[in-house]
């Protein structure tokens, strides 16, 4: 059965429109149109995201009361340990301040935070990436670190548009970031995402001693990311005598599915 004429005409129109769209994009003439549509959709998307988060939180609160009481017990134990550590830290801070004064140390903070709201997630399903409501107009650029609750690093910017930017989360499998494990030897490694499910540090030499609870921070080896940004703690590690390297799983306190506000660190 031959196809109707209507179909042929329509096909030509569709192909022509697509070609025109690509041509206009290539010439850069489509940018105002794209900005207009972002301007139109962004407030609605942002409001719906806040609302869905609120609904999700309510549901989780109901569901996880039992889990919360168990978690509370563990947290109390951790708190008592942290208080001890804090006391030690305060003593060392006092010494540090004294020594800095002696050396006339200059506070050289290179980065300043910019608050951004999450408005949603990318639509292409390629990555665990969030959309924030800041973009080129706020001087954001690719590679800048993004911090979540309690200033934990959650990812870095991978794409910037005029009014929005996209943040690749640390748990995405295409995410790689140079990190340091804070222990006696300050081991340097590369933190990778695991299919949106977790974080691992691979290729740690067997000679390095790891222990659960070691803190993982940024190493400062990437020019756009300052050092010592908190990422998480070593949750577990795998070693076997025949391997040359060991692998550590890192636990973050951040719930990557429930982030509403972030801080983007911009160079001053």
């Amino acid at each position, binding site marked *: *059965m031959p*196809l*109707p*004429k*209507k*179909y042929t005409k*329509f*096909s030509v129109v*569709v192909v022509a*429109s*697509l070609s025109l*769209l*690509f041509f206009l*994009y290539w010439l850069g003439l*489509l940018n105002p149109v*794209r900005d207009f*549509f*972002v301007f*139109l*959709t962004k407030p*609605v*998307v*942002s409001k*719906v*995201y806040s609302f*869905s*988060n609120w609904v*999700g939180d309510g549901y989780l609160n109901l569901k996880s009361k039992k889990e919360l009481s168990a978690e509370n017990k563990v947290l109390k134990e951790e708190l008592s340990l942290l208080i001890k550590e804090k006391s030690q830290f305060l003593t060392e801070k006092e010494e540090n301040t004294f020594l800095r004064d002696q050396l006339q140390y200059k506070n050289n903070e290179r980065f300043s935070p910019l608050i951004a709201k999450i*408005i*949603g*997630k*990318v*639509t*292409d*399903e*390629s*990555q665990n*990436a969030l*959309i924030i409501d800041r973009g080129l107009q706020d001087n954001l650029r690719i590679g800048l670190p993004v911090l979540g609750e309690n200033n934990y690093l959650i990812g870095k910017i*991978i*794409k910037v*548009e005029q009014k*929005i930017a*996209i943040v*690749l989360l640390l748990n995405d*499998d*295409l995410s790689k970031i140079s990190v340091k494990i804070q222990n006696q030897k300050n081991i340097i490694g590369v933190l990778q995402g695991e*299919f949106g499910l977790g974080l691992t540090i691979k290729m740690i030499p067997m000679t390095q001693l790891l222990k659960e609870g070691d803190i993982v921070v940024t190493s400062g080896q990437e020019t756009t990311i300052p050092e010592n940004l908190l990422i998480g703690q070593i949750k577990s590690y795998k070693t076997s005598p025949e391997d040359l390297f060991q692998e550590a799983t890192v636990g973050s306190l951040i719930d990557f*599915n429930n982030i509403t506000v972030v801080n983007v660190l911009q160079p001053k």
Partner: protein
Amino acid sequence: MWKISKFILFVLSIVAWEVAIRPFLPSIWSNLNLSLIVLIIIGFVYSVELATVNALFFGFLFDLYSVLPFGTILLTYGLTFFLLNRLFYKFLTNKSLYSFIGMTGLVTLLFSSWQYCYLIIHFFYNKKEDILWTEFSRQFAVGFLWQLGLNCLFGLFFFVLLNYFSRRFKAVYIDTIKN
């Protein structure tokens, strides 16, 4: 004016669903592709041409909130409904429930195939590790099966609902000879 407002509201709802709600749903439910179902309903109730135009518009809007190069999602939606248009005239000649479910399954399959192609290219370009490909392909296949099931299920639900409230869904034979 009322028609334009209705259309804007409709488009905004779909974009809000795809960007702000769907990705954050529990794992299985995030496979439900409501925009595809809506487009199929448009194709069934009005015409496949109108569904294709809407698909291109949705593709353009979803491209605004994507990491991939401009046009990837636009092309995915465009190609899917372009082919559906052809198949609709060739094979799916009535507006029965079977035809609707068949169309939903077909659209999901076509859409997922294009999606798999561009995602695998994206992975190859960014990370040349075989294990990632195989693991990604496995996860994608599972996600596709869920999406197929959910889309057909929700498609069925909307079909029954619309059939109850509207006469546009009543079974008719499309006369393709007159055209």
